[in-house]
């Protein structure tokens, strides 16, 4: 059907714009139809040919004045024909019939289509849906990416991804998962699941730091777009604001994460002049808006950590004391070993490398850190700083062995090599 990758060459911009517009309008129509019938697959089927036609024609013909009316007109023709054929040939398929009727109704007045994408997101991130499938399901239903493209971005076999998505959609329909924003009593927990899934979309894109894999780079943009959508639909939810601020902070530093040669640059060595000031300002404004609501949460805290790093734009230095306090709060909230590692790194800055190492030692028994590269890299860096060259060397070796990204691996190897010449006690 389509491809997540951005095309390379002339006319890219027109194509990318047309595709983005098609996806936004497609998602709104899928959400509207599926919310009525709970049949996501049926809604996708009804719109798929029209969506494919939009992807093929808009880049050359231009984007129509009313994109939804255009998609609907095509979808209506195809679906109503199919429904009529089916009705006469076999036992009525009530869902398809219902979809055909809905299409008839909305096609008559396209300005009246309510935005049900938030309801669809809550259905996709329902606790009854397998947690690992929530983000892929959102990408497919809200943005129309096909299973093969999603599988590629999430490093899963296409057949496996396709099966998971089909199963999840069947579950929504058969188990009667509702399409609605949950009641206030459970809203916070359920919204967390939606935000987690959006963050997973973003993180998949962000993981490709080199930006060499266009499919994944685009996922970061789609994650931000979904984050903006949630904020526009729930403007008073502090964690939704916090998530968007967090993603914008990370996105602002995308370019600075690599030298022009492609080498990895850790956050503390990045040139603040390369950070995108507009994105950072927007992120800071969102975070201030969130904090005025007076309800703290994981994403706000993580965004605040980013913000405490970004003060380096003006002061020349990260606010490590604030970062330590924020990680204390995050650790209390999540108990995550990843947070504990970051807290240890902050401690090393505020109280010296020995304090940081002591905090890392406290994690050594946690099986989850044994195969986690950042734990060993953090350990190696701190051991190097207290002059334990042998210990640092050993820890770097483990970190290098666990790393997936070649440029990060090369960076760790450089640090390891720098330990070796005598007379140098710091990497």
């Amino acid at each position, binding site marked *: 059907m389509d491809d997540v990758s951005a095309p390379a060459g002339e006319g890219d911009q027109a194509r990318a714009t047309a595709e983005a517009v098609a996806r936004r309008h497609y998602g709104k129509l899928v959400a509207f139809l599926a919310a009525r019938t709970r049949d996501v697959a049926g809604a996708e089927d009804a719109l798929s040919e029209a969506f494919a036609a939009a992807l093929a024609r808009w880049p050359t013909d231009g984007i129509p004045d009313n994109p939804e009316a255009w998609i609907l007109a095509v979808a209506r023709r195809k679906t109503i024909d199919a429904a009529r054929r089916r009705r006469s040939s076999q036992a009525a398929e009530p869902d398809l019939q219902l979809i055909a009727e809905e299409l008839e109704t909305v096609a008559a007045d396209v300005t009246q289509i309510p935005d049900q994408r938030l309801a669809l997101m809550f259905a996709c991130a*329902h*606790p*009854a849906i397998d947690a690992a499938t929530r983000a892929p399901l959102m990408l497919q239903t809200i943005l129309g990416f096909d299973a093969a493209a999603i599988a590629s971005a999430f490093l899963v076999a296409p057949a496996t991804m396709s099966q998971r998505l089909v199963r999840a959609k069947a579950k929504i329909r*058969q*188990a*009667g*998962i*509702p399409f609605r924003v*949950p009641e206030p009593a459970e809203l916070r927990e359920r919204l967390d699941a939606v935000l987690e899934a959006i963050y997973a979309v973003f993180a998949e894109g962000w993981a490709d730091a080199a930006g060499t894999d266009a499919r994944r780079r685009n996922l970061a943009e789609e994650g931000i777009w979904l984050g903006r959508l949630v904020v526009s639909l729930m403007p008073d939810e502090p964690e939704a604001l916090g998530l968007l601020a967090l993603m914008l902070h990370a996105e602002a530093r995308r370019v600075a994460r690599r030298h022009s040669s492609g080498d990895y640059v850790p956050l503390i060595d990045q040139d603040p002049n390369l950070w995108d000031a507009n994105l950072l300002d927007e992120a800071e404004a969102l975070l201030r808006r969130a904090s005025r609501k007076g309800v703290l949460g994981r994403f706000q805290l993580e965004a605040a950590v980013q913000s405490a790093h970004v003060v380096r734009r003006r002061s020349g230095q990260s606010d490590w004391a604030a970062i330590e306090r924020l990680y204390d709060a995050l650790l209390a909230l999540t108990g995550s070993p990843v947070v504990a590692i970051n807290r240890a790194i902050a401690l090393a800055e505020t109280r010296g490398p020995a304090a940081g190492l002591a905090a890392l030692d406290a994690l050594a028994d946690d099986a989850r850190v044994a195969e986690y590269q950042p734990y060993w890299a953090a350990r190696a860096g701190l051991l190097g700083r207290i002059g334990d060259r042998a210990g640092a060397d050993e820890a770097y070796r483990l970190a290098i062995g666990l790393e997936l990204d070649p440029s990060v691996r090369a960076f760790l190897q450089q640090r390891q090599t720098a330990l070796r010449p005598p007379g140098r006690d710091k990497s």
Partner: protein
Amino acid sequence: MNYMLLIYSDEAGFKAASKAQVEQTMAAYVAYTEALKKAGALVRGDRLQSASSASTVRVANGKTQVLDGPYAETKEQLGGFYLIDVPDLDAALAWAARCPGAGHGTVEVRPLWTM
């Protein structure tokens, strides 16, 4: 939609419980059933005799086999069920969470097949 709430729990634990504990649990079920009725959600609900009363039947090659005991020997056994009629899965999950069985065992929520 109709959902079946299937209550699985450890029969041995229930048998070992004191008289007061058993009475408390039964009272909780009576109250729960009453709440379902008042909400207009109850289609029917019953407790099953213990798994040791079960017989299992299978017909293979035209021959009927009857076995003594439940289909699967597990630590937790099917002990009862409620059939409820509610708008969606969230409502069914909310009722399952209120079921006393969710406290002393596990409640499986299954939508009924609709033709």
